[in-house]
């Protein structure tokens, strides 16, 4: 296959950036999308040009490090697939492909296609955990968990933190990411004691990090490579409402 790539090049955070066109020939349909970029970069290095910087690591769709807007779609055209797992057989010979970084004010561009997603870590640090210091755990079978809840918790826990939901959202909202973690932890008995402080902490951190609000545009779930369901955001909203109505109420057991 022969392809024309139009890639966002930006030297650093201060650079304005621009789309640059490259021709890549003899692409095998069995290559992954990132392997196709490897081929381009090898050529650029030998030609004395700066290779295209892009994030990637596991290349098996689980670390969440890769993230590219491909023809305007987060992670490209194939649903449920990260950019690293996307293969060139999804494209046609002669096609022109646009490749851009995630665009969201909470994810500033570092260089070319590499962005800073540190804001996601801040949301987790603000409550996306169950407080269980090492050594304090009771015997695992002392608390059974209904299979349906365990399975639903797993489904939300499958989030890889790649940021596709934010990139796809017209508001640049990180609600699906936040809701996925909240849903996992609030479905489990172990997560109940911190349920309402958690939602306030995480939502506040989300807003402070510069993510936009959720307006139920629904663009996030289809873009999510792990298919995190939209109804997690409904759960978040319900818990947030409960939590804010309890705010200032210090009565034990409320």
């Amino acid at each position, binding site marked *: 296959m022969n392809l024309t790539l139009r890639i966002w090049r930006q030297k650093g955070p201060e650079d304005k950036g621009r789309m640059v066109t490259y021709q890549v020939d003899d692409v095998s349909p*069995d290559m992954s999308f990132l392997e196709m970029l490897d081929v381009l970069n090898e050529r650029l*290095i030998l030609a004395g040009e700066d290779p295209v910087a892009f994030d990637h690591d596991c290349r098996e769709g689980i670390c969440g490090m890769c993230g590219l807007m491909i023809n305007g779609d987060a992670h490209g055209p194939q649903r449920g697939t990260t950019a690293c797992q996307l293969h060139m057989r999804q494209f046609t010979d002669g096609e022109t492909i646009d490749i851009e970084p995630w665009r969201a004010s909470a994810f500033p561009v570092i260089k070319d296609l590499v962005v800073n997603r540190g804001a996601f870590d801040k949301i987790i640090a603000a409550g996306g955990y169950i*407080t269980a210091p090492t050594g304090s755990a009771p015997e695992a079978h002392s608390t059974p968990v209904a299979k349906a809840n365990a399975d639903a918790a797993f489904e939300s826990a499958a989030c890889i933190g790649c940021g596709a939901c934010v990139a796809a959202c017209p508001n640049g909202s990180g609600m699906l990411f936040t809701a996925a973690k909240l849903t996992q932890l609030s479905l489990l008995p172990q997560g109940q004691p911190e349920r309402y402080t958690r939602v306030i902490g995480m939502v506040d951190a989300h807003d402070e990090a510069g993510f936009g609000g959720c307006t139920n545009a629904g663009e996030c779930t289809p873009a999510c490579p792990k298919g995190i369901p939209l109804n997690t955001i409904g759960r978040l909203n319900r818990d947030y409402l409960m939590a804010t109505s309890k705010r200032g109420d210090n009565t034990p057991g409320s």
Partner: protein
Amino acid sequence: MELFTEGDPIADTKAPTGPVEKRWETRRFEAKLVNPANRRKMTVIVVGTGLAGGSAAATLAEQGYHVRSYCYQDSPRRAHSIAAQGGINAAKNYRNDGDSVHRLFYDTVKGGDFRSRESNVHRLAEVSVNIIDQCVAQGVPFAREYGGLLDTRSFGGAQVQRTFYARGQTGQQLLLGAYQALERQIGLGNVEMNARHEMLELVIVDGKARGIVVRDLVTGEISTEMADAVVLASGGYGNVFYLSTNAKGCNVTATWRAHRKGAYFANPCYTQIHPTCIPVSGDHQSKLTLMSESLRNDGRVWVPKTKGDDRNPRDIPEDERDYYLERIYPSFGNLVPRDIASRAAKNVCDEGRGVGPTKLGVYLDFADAIGRLGRKAIEAKYGNLFEMYERITGEDPYEVPMRIYPAVHYTMGGLWVDYDLQSSIPGLFVIGEANFSDHGANRLGASALMQGLADGYFVLPTTIANYLASGPLEKVDASHPAAVEARADVEDRVQRLLAVNGDRTVDSFHRELGQIMWEHCGMERSEAGLRKAIDEIRALRDQFWQRVRVSGTGEELNQSLEKAGRVADFFELAELMCIDALHREESCGGHFRAEHQTPDGEAQRDDDRFAYVAAWEFTATGEPSVLHKEDLKFEYVHPTQRSYK
């Protein structure tokens, strides 16, 4: 020139004596403690944020130490533990199927082909039960039965069901549990997290590890960070083979730099080649993808009985198929340990019975299981793996059998550590895959996650206190001459890599190095091959330093520079791996020497000559390393010819 010299044996591993089941308890009681008020004044550096590093950093911070944590990824959540699929072993015996701490200990020592330490492995088995409790308390969504209790499944090398799992994403869920505990400590100000930073040198002051030199991968700034102790949790070195199931960034640099500063490197030739990976499809291939061992619970491995049978697998009748694992190993069948399954696959392909376009592949067939349990049940168990397979190969494994072939997956070797997980440099601790300690010559499936978390949550936090309590250490800062020198070395090396300005890319060298290693230091090794490999590696390394081309500068995000530094270290490691493989004139676990096999082609150990850990001491670049032997004593599990028949 001699390839190596022999030095003094290692006499003491600091393991307590007495009954094996009492040793960890004894160590815990005898270990000195640090009072909580003093912990606040002590800084521990942890390099790497996988299961071992993440859990260690979180736990040390919970205990009150000041922790500085480093990872090269953009977030601690992305360490490669995240990609572990199948599960984590624990001797809970929830199935009432005869499991116990002693049986897990026994299986692991035997699975490692009698090349691991009994004291360490027993401790691992003891701690395994606490790990499951800890992870459940953190909200790790393990698979559960309808009654709400935890489900388990079988893994290779065991006849009990002791593997806990979270669909095919167990590593991800365990890592996120550790990551969340770590983020909690970051939020509380107890851990200072440095993502996108790479350790490039160790700082030693008065013989003790006191700091590291790191490069900020975004700005290129090189800085020196000092501490009271340094913990390396930087993972394995499988990427020396270029193609492996490791993440692209996985590297040996942190441990190799420590090795050059005096930390012994143990058993570098012990490499795990995983039997169930998606075969290579072409020269463009940048990495290999694992298909979890758990698939061998329900998938049956076969090749055609006759050479060159090119028929569609569905058209090959039952009696013309060779289910070779079930045939050769009737008692373990498709669930033989990884080293055995991999070699068997290689053998049938060498006979010309391999399948697929390259003929380097065997079938993993689910037709029986789908017939017996229904497609839905298979989907629930392995859905994500089947989807991944289809995305990569374009074939639907519900309809046609998967094609699989062995690939480099894990390295049992690593920095030598004593029972306290302390390296041969005082104050330098090594945990998880980065050390060599628990798996001998072959790791059993679902034991890597167990070891990473055992080290990080439970073992290191106890043993490091014993070291820190022997202080207080003299105050030192980055202006200490040893720190200044280490930093100057890093700067010099960066400049040297940039200055070559040759005509070949880093990847082209890495690929070629990987081919040499796969050919001669892979699934089967021989004296002639290893000697040839050593010559080829040296020649290629010289070429690298004359012809590599690294673009850009050191003062920016420069991925080509990052790779160049890692590959330069892989070249040095590769040579040591081959020397280690050459000197070990026996076969054991993943180390298979063609000259040493039983009449039916199994690994032939030589316990009289080689029942020891080979710990290598670095001398100088280009000079022979010094071999230190640590004798292995087996008081409980007596070495026998390992049989899974």
